[in-house]
């Protein structure tokens, strides 16, 4: 099969499959071969699911040949972050050595929905151990090794959906599923020059996904384009009796081209603390966005946003992993700091956690008040390019960096999409994020598509891959 399928967007692959120019089986074999051959280069893969993939691909081919086309993911390969339960003897490791051989006997709802959409599961993808919930400070925080960035193999691919980022950027799968508690979709998307969509909290069922923080965890796609993220979201969104936080708000992706004008907001001083190249990329992006609509400076009231979301995250993670922490099994984790940092969280007072939950309500209302007159808040996706493999991971979660957009967006459960918007130091990508009101995925995706329609950053791919 021609190499030009490797970096083809999902929409393009879908057109080829539907028109029977592309064979789902050959497509699966192409990406399975790449996963097996190149996956180790990027520490991107935990398990290549060859048998399941070929079975699904053959079924897709037969259905399509019989005229039963399911939709744009039918016959399209993908990878799932290895915190999503998979049946059939495929391990689900959570990136953590204590669970490296653990298997479930059911599929996570997202995996099941993608199967129903006809997508082909080709790999379980590497991740930071326990999705970074134990306080890691370095890229080497998984039993599979640090996620390697296809743009620069001395750099990290981002966390915690590191394999999801590396695999899509290196053309090992056309799209992947990641999870975000605070930054774990937008960070690898930004570091790897991809589109990454964090849906509204409650949009996508987490049933069968590792719980890190019950009120912060979200699942979403990483892909080559914002448009592809919309296609994937439609397949995985929707209420699920097995996850009572899901909401019965039907999502139909509107991928139509629009000539509408957008209203963008930028938080005052949002680029403070950003690397120079990130500021330059963002300034160029704002010029482009002014051609697509209006850009105005906005402010949020002075609240301790990072502290609100951080306190919720730490307290819930301490409870979610209570057994692992209290048993001392965290001593088996890879990053040395992951073996003890969580002990500190026993000291979070219930009163302080509740105060954070009370302030979360204020934060959510204030964010919505600002967003009500906008289509999206825009900001750099990350304050810097990906750190080097031997470097420190600066993180707002630990307080070593500031991330108001991430704190508000995740704390209030708001959707955001990141897309590439340039390159910074060491040839590494920079990114632009669009954050919208709750349930406004179609709006932010339309804005991101409009941006990508007049830029070509998403058409550039690592020479290494």
């Amino acid at each position, binding site marked *: 099969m021609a190499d030009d399928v490797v970096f083809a967007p999902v929409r393009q692959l879908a057109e080829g499959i539907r028109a029977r120019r592309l064979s789902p089986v050959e497509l699966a074999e192409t990406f399975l071969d790449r996963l097996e051959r190149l996956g180790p280069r990027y520490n991107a893969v935990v398990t290549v699911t060859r048998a399941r993939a070929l079975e699904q691909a053959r079924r897709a081919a037969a259905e399509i040949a019989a005229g039963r086309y399911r939709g744009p993911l039918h016959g399209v390969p993908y990878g799932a972050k290895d915190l999503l339960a998979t049946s059939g003897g495929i391990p689900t490791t959570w990136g953590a050595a204590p669970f490296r051989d653990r298997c479930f006997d059911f599929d996570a709802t997202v995996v099941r929905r993608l199967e129903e959409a006809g997508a082909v599961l080709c790999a379980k993808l590497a991740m930071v151990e326990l999705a970074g919930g134990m306080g890691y400070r370095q890229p080497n925080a998984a039993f599979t090794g640090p996620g390697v960035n296809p743009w620069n193999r001395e750099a990290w691919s981002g966390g915690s959906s590191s394999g999801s980022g590396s695999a899509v950027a290196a053309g090992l799968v056309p799209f992947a599923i990641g999870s975000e508690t605070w930054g774990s979709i937008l960070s690898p998307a930004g570091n790897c020059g991809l589109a990454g969509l964090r849906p509204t909290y409650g949009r996508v069922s987490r049933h069968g996904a590792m719980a890190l923080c019950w*009120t912060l965890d979200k699942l979403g796609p990483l892909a080559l384009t914002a448009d592809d993220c919309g296609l994937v979201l439609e397949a995985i969104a929707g209420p699920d009796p097995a996850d009572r936080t899901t909401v019965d708000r039907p999502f139909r992706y509107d991928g139509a081209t629009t000539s509408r004008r957008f209203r963008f907001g930028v938080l005052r001083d949002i680029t403070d603390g950003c690397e120079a190249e990130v500021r330059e990329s963002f300034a160029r992006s704002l010029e482009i966005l002014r051609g697509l609509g209006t850009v105005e400076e906005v402010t949020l009231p002075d609240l*301790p946003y*990072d*502290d609100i979301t951080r306190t919720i995250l730490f307290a819930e993670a301490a409870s979610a992993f209570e057994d692992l922490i209290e048993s001392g099994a965290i001593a088996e984790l890879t990053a040395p700091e992951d073996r*003890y940092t969580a002990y500190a969280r026993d000291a979070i007072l219930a009163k*302080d956690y509740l*105060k954070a939950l009370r*302030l*979360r309500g204020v934060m959510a209302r204030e964010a919505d008040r600002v967003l009500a007159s906008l289509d999206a808040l825009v900001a750099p996706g990350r304050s810097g390019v990906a750190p080097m493999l031997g470097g420190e991971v600066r993180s707002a979660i630990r*307080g070593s960096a500031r991330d108001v957009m991430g704190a508000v967006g995740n704390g209030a459960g708001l959707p955001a999409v990141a897309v590439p918007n340039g390159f910074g130091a060491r040839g590494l990508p920079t990114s632009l994020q669009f954050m919208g009101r709750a349930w406004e995925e179609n709006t932010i995706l339309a804005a991101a598509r409009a941006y990508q329609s007049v830029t070509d950053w998403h058409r550039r791919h690592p020479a290494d891959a």
Partner: protein
Amino acid sequence: MSEPEAVRAEVETMLALVRERYGPRLDAEQLAGVRTALEGIVQAARALRAVRLTSAEEPAQPFAAYRAEP
């Protein structure tokens, strides 16, 4: 007590709790790491406590009375 002294005192109190629960598992370097983590937790907590809210401001948390169907 100055703010830094108050933070330090709270951190030491919390550290004593962690040492009581997990001390035998932790060497000196790890305890120092726990102390650093505690400093962040205490700073965050104090920032939260500094914001005044009315008692009507409830936690943003769903809870519903439960009754099995039907």
